[in-house]
């Protein structure tokens, strides 16, 4: 909590000028705070975190202050009266840019994987490979289609620049990225992910040419809401995909399906309409009123060899040959065929010639095989099919007879100096001419554009042409020199590959959209990409930890078989092979690529990494920790993690090691993180502005994926911390602190931060299970619900209403608790409901009911910060409620005096001023000593009500036996310490006492009631900022109480004996609730232990995992379990139903300090039904239909019953408000005599926290002790 001394002195607003505007701020605020709070500018900062003290090291937030020579960091500059501040000008921008360039000059990291970088369309390779690996094919496809609408086509014919640049080339073989894409494109449901079109804009665009560039451009424009019409000269769409690529490589039916999918979003098509013949650019613009035109006519013209005799019969262009084959079907070729050229078209022509029955097919190429532009795998395939390669030779003349081809005269070549393409130039060897007899020659030495229609345009609509007769465009926007006319694909680049055309199409679509919306053509800002390769070759030691693995290959048909037809040659990988291949990805791209501040600012400030390049440090990544990766290569030394760890958590696990340029952030002595004292809370990840600290997700693959944030709540303990769920798709999510957490907020412990995602993903029960022939087998909901209803009803009917219990941990939502209570009482006619874990620990506790009205917290967690004294009476929050321990430590740093009463040297003793260590079971006596001293000292609160004097006397009496010496002796604590505590409590302005209701180790007779009475008599209950905090077992323990999921208490805390309320409830539920009281005088524990329970419905609880409970409950004749995981109890059940998590409902959780927290449904429960829906279905099956299972409807009903307005409840949900509201917190009612005895309970290890254990097991498996 940043606090500053200026604050103390003046409360008047400070008046200053920021960017010429008059602004008022509070004294002590920094310039940055004022600017941010009032939204005056978006000042960049890397080292500042509002949760931490100003630090001022990155110098990104610099501003100009009038009268100050240099720039000043706004994060550390306090506002002054009359100050004049400028937050943005050229000088400031230059300084910020330089700071970024310096930081990035020592940032040895890749933002995105090199494959994505190399892909002309920048498809998120790593993202979709990860999703495919995890089986999320539709999500993978959606990701691909964000940049490439032709994945089916590319999956077959792409030249795979991604694979050529894959880092795995440095290790063994590149990842089969395209194989994965092909699998996804072939197996995902395309119509599932059809994106939404934006509303119609009324703008019209003509796309000339239906090849990949035109289709892509049309697709993205149509998505933006523009009306698009494609004009295609040929009778079908596809361009070179149709006419240039043979059927055996790309089945046209598959291609057509993909084109159909593109057109299905609403694109008009006009076939056999040719530019220059059927229309002109001018006519499109002037007559047909198209707002923009995209030219993508391709390069369909064959280039000639330029040798004498070329026009002889028997010589044709490879392209014509392929086109004719496509148009007219296979024709028979007899004799020897020579294909001239080395590109993909040449290989396609040769392989097609083989399929046309040629006796011998030879490819004649002037360089060597290594230099062939065709994909090497294509060349391999051609050779397998019998194609011969004649390398280092070129035709010089066609040998003809009567204009009839007889052969080719060729000349031998040798390789000379490299040319501008980097390949060695072929040089003819003089006098090496030789004749190559043949019957056909297919020339495939290149293609050109058809520039005639362009040249025919009138000047004002004629785009400029290059020397090569391609259209000249601005490559950043694809705009031609004619306003509103854009071009892309081969007509711009000359013959290129499909993915280039797709990239052009998308780029043009973006520019055209911009043009249509604003009338301007602007360069789209590319996101900055940091790349390791710019610092030179990557040292191979960086790959030391990579396991070598073989690349999979596509299954293919035998060569002998496939040359007989045009059916497809290669098939997709099998699913297991594809997943293995996807698993080979080394995940080079940064996990923080979507939310890295450094990257964001580098983009914004348009940095040039090389400008200040110099020595760069290369570090080993520390991945020793099971949950956290520390990559010092990405660290910018802002120190936020170091300061968070030290100042917020008081731990100092991380620190600066070394000095100056060589400084690095690491645990002490440079040890690995796993060997440090890290408590895995992950707060360092949260604050890191780059990807230097990242979380390991529990998904086997780490993405990275872009996510959306939704507010939710942590379900692991009764603190119920608010958190954000970062959701990628159903099944992939993780937790972070809520966005914009201020000082003292945003804490999460390892359970919340890492467990929330973990419980979501693995080993969940996916389907209802029914026991058949002794085995649990999958069943559908209908069957399972009916079976559950049947067996519960059978027990109830046979043994009476008291024979069935409803057990549940309060980790279900308040709404679900309410429904469970209704099911128990209205349907099963039993009041035996509650957490058996709590029951086992001899709860529920009613110690304070008489004293303050109920046994609950009387203040808020935040009060810890402002308290003079925090008293931990038996509670050990570091173990059970870590976030509370963070709060206490932080308070201690700021001067709060911490007192620990605990028999053990617990973690927080370190932060305490006073530690009283009574023998186990004697803390009650110790507290009695304190109470007696307080009473005797006469320092009880001044306004002690007189009518309670008699009670006070009798309380005193009950304390008569213990004098201080006796207390000290019994507890084994020095009297002076006990007196010291008593004095601290009487003199403190505010005291917060923390007690753990479910602790069975430190508990002593009447300890809680004595503690509460100490607080009452010293005036610390019933006053803001002071009071008692009780910690409970489950996140929703308090919500469960309020919703009535507790034995003997109806919703709203009304006692079962409250006849009026019971009648009201019976009416609301339309049920008979009369039998509930008399039947069960004994407690749930007693009934269970005496064997009176024969059936149970269990929610998220595992009583059979506890040997003692197992002994008592082991012989149930009916057991229905609703849970996430197969617990011991689930394994013994007749029916098991999948439960939902907090991420799967819109329900409510109430923390133990009564903060109301809302969940957001962001995930589909595995079984499809939420726990609430399960209860409702079960209730219906038992003959009691519940009108709605909707969370909001249930809240409406609940609020009407318990007397809070629904609006108030919804407001509390939204704002994390308190319920009951603050004023209704428990107050002084009566003093109560106390019993003094020392007891020791056997600590109970009831496995109530299945989820925690589950996480801990997972972590322990990774070698981490938590």
């Amino acid at each position, binding site marked *: 909590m940043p606090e500053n001394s200026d604050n103390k002195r003046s409360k008047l607003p400070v008046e200053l000028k920021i960017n010429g505007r008059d602004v008022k701020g509070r004294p002590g605020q920094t310039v940055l705070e004022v600017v941010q709070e009032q939204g005056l500018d978006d000042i960049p900062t890397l080292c500042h975190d509002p949760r931490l003290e100003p630090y001022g090291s990155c*110098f990104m937030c610099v501003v100009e202050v009038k009268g100050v020579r240099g*720039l000043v960091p706004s994060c550390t500059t306090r506002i002054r009266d009359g100050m004049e501040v400028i937050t943005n000008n050229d000088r400031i921008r230059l300084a910020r840019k*330089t700071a970024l360039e310096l*930081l990035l000059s*020592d940032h040895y990291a890749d933002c995105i994987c090199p494959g994505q970088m190399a892909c002309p369309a920048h498809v998120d390779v790593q993202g979709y490979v990860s999703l495919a690996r995890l089986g999320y094919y539709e999500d993978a496809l959606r990701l691909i289609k964000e940049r490439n609408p032709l994945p089916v086509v590319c999956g077959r014919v792409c030249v795979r620049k991604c694979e050529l640049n894959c880092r795995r080339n440095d290790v063994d073989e590149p990842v089969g990225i395209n194989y994965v894409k092909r699998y996804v494109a072939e197996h995902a449901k395309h119509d599932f992910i059809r994106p939404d079109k934006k509303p119609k804009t009324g703008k019209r665009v003509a796309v000339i040419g239906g090849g990949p560039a035109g289709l892509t451009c049309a697709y993205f424009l149509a998505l933006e809401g523009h009306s698009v019409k494609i004009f295609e000269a040929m009778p079908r769409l596809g361009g070179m995909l149709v006419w240039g690529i043979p059927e055996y490589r790309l089945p046209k039916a598959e291609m057509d399906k993909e084109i159909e999918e593109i057109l299905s979003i609403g694109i008009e098509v006009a076939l056999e309409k040719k530019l220059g013949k059927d229309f002109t650019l001018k006519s499109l613009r002037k007559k047909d009123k198209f707002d923009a035109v995209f030219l993508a006519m391709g390069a369909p013209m064959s280039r000639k060899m330029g040798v004498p005799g070329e026009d002889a019969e028997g010589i044709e262009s490879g392209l014509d040959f392929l086109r004719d084959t496509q148009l007219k079907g296979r024709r028979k070729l007899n004799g020897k065929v020579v294909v001239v050229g080395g590109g993909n078209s040449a290989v396609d022509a040769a392989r097609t010639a083989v399929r046309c029955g040629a006796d011998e097919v030879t490819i004649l190429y002037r360089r060597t095989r290594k230099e062939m532009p065709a994909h090497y795998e294509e060349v391999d395939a051609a050779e397998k099919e019998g194609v011969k390669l004649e390398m280092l030779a070129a035709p010089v003349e066609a040998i003809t007879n009567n204009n009839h081809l007889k052969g080719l005269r060729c000349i031998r070549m040798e390789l000379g100096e490299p040319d501008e393409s980097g390949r060695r130039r072929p040089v003819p060897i003089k006098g090496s001419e030789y004749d190559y007899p043949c019957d056909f020659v297919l020339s495939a030495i290149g293609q050109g554009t058809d520039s005639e229609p362009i040249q025919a345009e009138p000047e004002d609509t004629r785009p400029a042409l290059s020397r090569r007769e391609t259209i000249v465009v601005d490559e950043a926007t694809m705009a031609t020199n004619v306003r509103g006319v854009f071009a892309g694909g081969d007509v711009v680049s000359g013959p290129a590959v499909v993915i280039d055309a797709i990239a052009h199409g998308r780029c043009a679509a973006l520019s055209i959209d911009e043009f249509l919306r604003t009338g301007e053509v602007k360069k789209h800002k590319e996101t900055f990409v940091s790349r390791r390769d710019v610092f030179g070759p990557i040292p191979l030691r960086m790959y030391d930890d990579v396991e070598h693995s073989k690349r999979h290959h596509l299954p293919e048909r035998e060569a002998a078989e496939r040359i007989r037809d045009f059916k497809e040659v290669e098939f997709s990988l099998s699913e297991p092979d594809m997943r293995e291949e996807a698993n080979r990805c080394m995940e080079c791209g940064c996990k923080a690529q979507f939310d890295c501040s450094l990257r964001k600012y580098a983009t914004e400030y348009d940095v040039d990494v090389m400008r*200040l390049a110099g*020595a760069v440090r290369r570090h080993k990544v520390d991945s020793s920790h099971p949950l956290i990766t520390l990559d010092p290569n990405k660290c910018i030394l802002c120190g936020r993690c170091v300061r968070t760890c030290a100042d917020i958590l008081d731990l100092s696990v991380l620190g600066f090691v070394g*000095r100056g340029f060589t400084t690095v952030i690491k645990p002490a002595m440079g040890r690995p993180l796993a060997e440090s004292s890290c408590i895995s809370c992950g707060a360092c990840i949260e604050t890191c502005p780059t990807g230097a600290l990242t979380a390991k997700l529990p998904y086997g693959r780490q993405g990275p994926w872009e996510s959306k944030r939704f507010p939710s709540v942590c379900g692991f303990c009764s603190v119920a911390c608010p958190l954000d769920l970062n959701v990628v798709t159903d099944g992939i999510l993780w937790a972070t602190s809520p966005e914009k957490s201020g000082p003292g907020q945003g804490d999460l412990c390892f359970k919340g931060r890492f467990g929330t995602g973990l419980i979501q993903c693995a080993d969940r029960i996916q389907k209802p299970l029914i026991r058949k022939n002794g085995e649990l087998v999958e069943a559908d909901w209908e069957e399972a619900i009916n079976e559950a209803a049947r067996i519960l009803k059978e027990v109830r009917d046979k043994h009476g209403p008291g024979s069935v219990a409803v057990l549940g941990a309060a980790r279900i939502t308040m709404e679900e608790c309410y429904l469970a209570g209704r099911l128990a009482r209205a349907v099963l006619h039993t009041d035996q409901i509650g957490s058996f874990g709590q029951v086992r620990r001899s709860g529920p506790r009613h110690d304070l009911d008489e004293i303050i009205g109920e046994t609950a917290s009387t203040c808020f967690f935040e009060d810890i910060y402002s308290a003079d004294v925090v008293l931990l009476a038996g509670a050990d929050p570091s173990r059970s409620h870590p976030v509370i321990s963070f709060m206490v430590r932080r308070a201690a740093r700021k001067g709060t005096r911490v007192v620990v009463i605990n028999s053990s040297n617990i973690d927080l003793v370190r932060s305490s001023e006073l530690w009283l260590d009574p023998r186990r079971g004697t803390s009650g006596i110790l507290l009695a000593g304190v109470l007696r001293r307080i009473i005797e000292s006469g320092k009880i609160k001044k306004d002690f009500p007189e009518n309670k004097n008699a009670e006070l006397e009798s309380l005193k009496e009950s304390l008569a036996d213990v004098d201080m010496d006796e207390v000290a002796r019994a507890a084994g604590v020095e009297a002076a310490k006990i007196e010291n505590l008593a004095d601290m409590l009487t003199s403190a302005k505010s005291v917060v006492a923390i007690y753990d209701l479910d602790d069975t180790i430190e508990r002593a007779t009447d300890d809680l009631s004595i503690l509460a009475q100490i607080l009452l008599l010293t005036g610390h209950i019933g006053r803001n900022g002071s009071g008692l905090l009780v910690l409970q077992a489950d996140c929703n323990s308090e919500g469960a109480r309020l919703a009535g999921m507790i034995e003997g208490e109806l919703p709203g805390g009304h006692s079962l004996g409250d006849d009026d309320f019971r009648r009201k409830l019976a009416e609301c539920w339309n049920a008979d609730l009369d039998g509930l009281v008399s039947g069960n005088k004994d407690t749930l524990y007693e009934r269970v232990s005496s064997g009176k329970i024969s059936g149970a419905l269990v929610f998220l609880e595992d009583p059979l995992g506890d040997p003692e409970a197992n002994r008592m409950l082991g012989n149930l004749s009916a057991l229905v379990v609703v849970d996430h995981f197969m617990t011991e109890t689930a394994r013994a059940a007749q029916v098991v139903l999948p439960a939902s998590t907090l991420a799967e409902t819109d329900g409510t959780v109430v923390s133990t300090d009564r903060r109301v927290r809302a969940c957001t449904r962001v995930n589909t429960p595995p079984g499809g039904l939420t726990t609430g829906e399960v209860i409702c279905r079960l209730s219906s099956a038992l003959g009691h239909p519940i009108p709605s299972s909707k969370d909001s409807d249930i809240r409406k009903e609940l609020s009407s019953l318990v007397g809070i307005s629904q609006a108030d409840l919804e407001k509390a949900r939204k704002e994390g408000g308190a319920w009951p509201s603050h004023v209704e917190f428990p107050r002084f009612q009566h003093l109560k005599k106390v019993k003094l005895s020392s007891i020791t309970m056997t600590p109970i290890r009831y496995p109530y926290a299945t989820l925690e254990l589950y996480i801990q097991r997972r972590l322990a498996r990774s070698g981490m002790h938590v």
Partner: protein
Amino acid sequence: MQEVIVGLGSCGIAAGGLAVYERFSELIEPEKDGIILKQTGCIGMCFREVLVEVVEITEDSKRRTLYGDVTPERVDRIVKEHLGEGKPIEEWVVKEEGQVLAKQSRIVLRNCGKIDPFSIEEYQARDGYKALENVLTKMTPEQVIETIADSGLRGRGGAGFPTGTKWRFARSYKDEHKYMICNADEGDPGAFMDRSVLEGDPHSVLEGIAIAGYAIGADHGYIYVRAEYPHAVRRLRHAIAQAEDKGFLGDNILGKGFDFSIKLKEGAGAFVCGEETALIASIEGKRGMPRVRPPFPAESGLWGYPTVINNVETLANVPWIILNGAKALNSYGTETSKGSKVFALAGKVKRVGLVEVPMGTTINEVIYDIGGGTLSGGPFKAVQMGGPSGGCIPASLGDTPIDYERITATGAIMGSGGMVVMDETTCMVDVSRFFLSFTQNESCGKCTFCRIGTKRMLEILERICAGKGEEKDLDVLAELGEQVKSSSLCGLGQTAPNPVLTTLRYFHDEYLAHIKDKRCPAKACLALVEFYINPEKCNGCGLCLKVCESGAISGEKKKVHKIDQSKCVKCGRCITVCRQEAVEKR
């Protein structure tokens, strides 16, 4: 009676002073000879160490004889002839003393070289601790502050903040504790003023701290001293113990109810710990890293309490001002800078040593009149003032009078008082590279510009020195330099580019020579020079051939030798051994 005083400052010890002292103690029997053997701190004329002073005391006079370059061998003759026979050995007497002292005014150094630093009695004999007594008996803290403020004393650590003002701030904050810290973390290369004062006159510093403590209301003092100054540490410890014994430190000082103790804290050698907030962090046991100001230490310093940090020299001034009055100091100096300033005169100057001159003395006066000019006898080329935070002042500005403002105007800073003289053999690019490599190494790593910016600047300078510089590098240097200055949290970063920026300003041509002509005019950058044997001088003695380890030199006896440039590694051994000075650089 005779006294023999051996100079045992670090300079004296380094020159062999301990052996000289030992030899005297072997030869002299005090009781029998009536000769007292003593030691003292730095006398100031380090260029003549080991210095030995012989004082002959008669009833009405004292005759002093100062010997320089004394060796244990020479001791025998001094004992025999001077002490025994009363015949001073004229040829060993230091004759420059008069010239050296003529332009000096020794306020801070008033006792240095005069008293035995281990003897509090000698300090007291020269009015030591009288100022403290005066203050405690006759003055209120406010009066002390006013006196210091009136004297015009400014911080001698480099920044020149008015000392009285600083004290007044600290005085104005009320708190249960306050701290007075003496910054003795002198770390500039070539600077040794503070060390000499601590070694030569530790009590004056202790007295200054105690007076300051009284003035601001502190109860504890710290001296943060470099651990690399073992003699200073030892003498300070001894002095603190003596002062405590005598009741000048501790509880109820001089019975006046003032409690004040001083602790010594040895720094671990990080240059940045001379920065006050980093120094405080270091005392607190944290990583020595500067923090944001405000709050200034005077408001919230050590452990969060009001704290004043003054440098050694500043504090050594304090007792003198109290005893002599504010006006006494005020009478020295210029309009804005009062009193004197101690400089460590080093580099290519004849008389290396410690000098104290009144503010306003010109650079030329210090170098020529006191320092005796350059070693080579020619004009100096530049003088580096202020250490790594300072800059190089060219000879053309030699008439600049020394005061805070005027030195700052040249681009250099007063600094703590390092003054390194350079002549034609000094390469200014190399000098700025040297100083920048120092600061770059000593950066704590916190601020982006200081951490990476200085690294990049250094890389550019290294490239230029290696002959691989480009002209645009100079623009980047200047731009980065300005940005590092304006975008760093503490003084280290804010001043680190000064040596580069001043040399760029005054010696631009020299940079261009490196870049364009690939030539180092001073022939100091080895990558840009080659060694060759001047055939006119070589007599073929073969000495160079023998010492050349890379086998680059060939030649027959009595014939001119040659250096094979492809093998030469430019180690320079041939130059050292050649008696004909035939090996030259070009």
